[in-house]
């Protein structure tokens, strides 16, 4: 009889829905039904048991085709690439568990690599702003139970975080918000009239790239000063109306997304968003939260900050001395300057999501992809190593967008023989240690004075 597994976590976006119900076939090999998930989460679970999964590592041959190899051979190849490279880059981690991230950091330290995660091209600017200006944030539970005004600024959860609005922000009935959406005001600020804007009480169609100007106008009005008739394409009256709603809130949360981080200004847009939140706290309680993209992209920031003191763009080329300097040690900048000589793509798809110019630079050197599925990165790699899907086939800790850790479980076994990210990195680490030891022995022999025989 099929088994229903309740309270399953979803390995898609930073909302980390943990109320999924997954029905698994009698033999435990097929996912029959997924309840409560959004369209994207649903697809992830069903895709896991479709035909055509890669079950063995594949090594690129001289004729351009792939040949299946064993995991031992793949581990040996990966370790040798990392060992021989002067400055390898290990990038990704949006879609794996914290255990895998910690194991990968051991490999990076041993190999003297740069260790970076998807925040580098996503919410990295948020880190920079948070370092400078603090992070007056809260948990999603607090928003659900307390917030009566919600602002989405440069974020479109209807598309990118499909259940964010129903679980935490607009629609749910919380402890102090028993009337659900009827008692909440929603303000959306976006250059497009997005599907999220459709459910807003106020939509301010800001001129693209002028968010900083608009934040500045908001701050000016909050502090009781006059502003020009139009700022960033928005009329003064509309700005004042929005600010009045925000000042009268009992509890408010600003959720912001890539509209701030991907546009001109980057971290400065986030910085002033934090300053606006601080200003509003002179009147009432306001909080701010980054709409983190992947279900565990908050994870590497937590894990690596604990291990090394930095959340992303970690330069470990000096092994146990870490340093971080986005612009210098960030993946895209390293790629464009041709500063790395090997690339490991793990739990992401740089082939599809990096600007193609950066892909071209990285592909001049050995490229290894670690991913359960065929993706653009796997199709231009020298080596593709399949792994189990976290949250479906592999359990582990993930961090939700509000930095709350959640234990994910598995609902089925991975395809026979397929290992986890964590096991793979542990094996690569072990092989790297062996290679290092072999080299030390060779150097020791080489260093012996010529003409001196053993025993003399």
């Amino acid at each position, binding site marked *: 009889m099929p088994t229903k597994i309740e309270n399953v976590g979803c390995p898609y976006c930073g909302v980390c829905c943990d109320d999924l119900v997954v029905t698994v076939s009698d033999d435990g090999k097929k996912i029959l039904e997924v309840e409560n998930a959004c*369209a*994207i989460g649903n*697809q*992830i679970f069903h*895709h896991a048991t479709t035909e055509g999964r890669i079950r063995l590592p594949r090594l690129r041959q001289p004729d*351009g085709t792939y040949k299946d190899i064993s995991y031992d051979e793949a581990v040996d190849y990966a370790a040798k690439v990392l060992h021989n490279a002067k400055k390898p880059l290990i990038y990704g981690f949006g879609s794996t568990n914290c255990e895998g991230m910690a194991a990968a950091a051991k490999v990076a330290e041993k190999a003297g690599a740069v260790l*970076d995660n998807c925040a*580098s*091209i*996503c919410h*990295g*600017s948020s880190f*920079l702003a948070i370092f400078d200006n603090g992070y007056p944030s809260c948990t999603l539970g607090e928003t659900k139970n307390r917030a009566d005004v919600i602002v989405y600024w440069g974020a*479109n959860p209807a*598309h*990118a975080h*499909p259940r964010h609005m129903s679980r935490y922000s607009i629609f749910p009935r919380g402890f102090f918000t028993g009337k659900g959406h009827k008692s909440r005001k929603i303000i959306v600020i976006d*250059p*497009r*009239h*997005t*599907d999220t*804007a459709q459910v807003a009480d106020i939509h301010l169609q800001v001129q*693209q*790239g002028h968010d900083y100007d608009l934040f500045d106008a908001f701050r000016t009005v909050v502090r009781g000063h006059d502003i020009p008739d139009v700022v960033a*394409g928005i009329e003064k009256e509309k700005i004042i109306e929005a600010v009045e709603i925000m000042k009268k809130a009992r509890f408010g949360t600003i959720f912001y997304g*890539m*509209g701030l*981080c*991907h*546009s*001109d200004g*980057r*971290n400065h847009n986030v910085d002033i968003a934090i300053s606006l939140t601080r200003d509003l706290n002179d009147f009432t309680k306001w909080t701010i939260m980054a709409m983190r993209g992947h279900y565990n992209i908050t994870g590497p920031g937590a894990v690596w900050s604990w291990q090394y003191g930095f959340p992303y*763009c970690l330069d470990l080329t000096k092994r146990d001395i870490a340093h971080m300097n*986005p*612009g210098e040690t*960030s*993946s*895209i*900048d390293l*790629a*464009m300057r041709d500063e790395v000589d090997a690339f490991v793509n793990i739990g992401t*798809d740089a*082939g*599809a*999501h*990096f*600007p*193609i*110019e*950066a*892909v071209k630079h990285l*592909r001049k050197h050995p490229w290894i992809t670690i991913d359960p*599925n*065929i*993706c*653009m990165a796997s*199709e*231009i790699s020298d080596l593709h190593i399949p792994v189990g899907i976290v949250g479906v086939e592999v359990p582990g800790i993930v961090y939700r967008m509000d930095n709350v850790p959640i234990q994910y479980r598995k609902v089925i076994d991975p395809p026979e023989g397929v290992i986890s990210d964590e096991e793979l990195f542990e094996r690569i680490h072990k092989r790297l240690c062996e290679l290092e030891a072999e080299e030390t022995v060779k150097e020791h022999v080489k260093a012996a004075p010529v003409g001196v025989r053993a025993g003399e």
Partner: protein
Amino acid sequence: MAKKITLNMITQRSIEEGVAMEKGKTTPEYFEACSIIEMHDDDVKALGLVPNQLVKVTSECGSVIVKTVKGRQSLYPGLAFIPQGVWANQIVPPRTQATGEPQYSGFPVTVEPADGERRKSALELVQGAVGMWRGEQ
């Protein structure tokens, strides 16, 4: 003379892209979800386009052929949108303002009708860019 206009390009997630991406980036669903451009009606008219016509979009670092569609999420005149993904990233400038983050949103592009051209597949674009495209297998 062929019409050509300059627009401000943004590339962000769409749910269609998200669903198709999880199904697989080599699927027809991903192709249809991502190899498209949305513009304001005024800009579509200025280019003299009919629905579903192909256009060539060119930025400071490359070009891509995509299909004009009328999106559900409207833009103001002068703003254009390609969903994040393989096609968008053919033209996204890798400059990062020293933050590590490329200019995914807010970069100038020219858009012109691309009669007689075709949309390339995701694999052809990515493998082609790095000299690994061996034709449809």
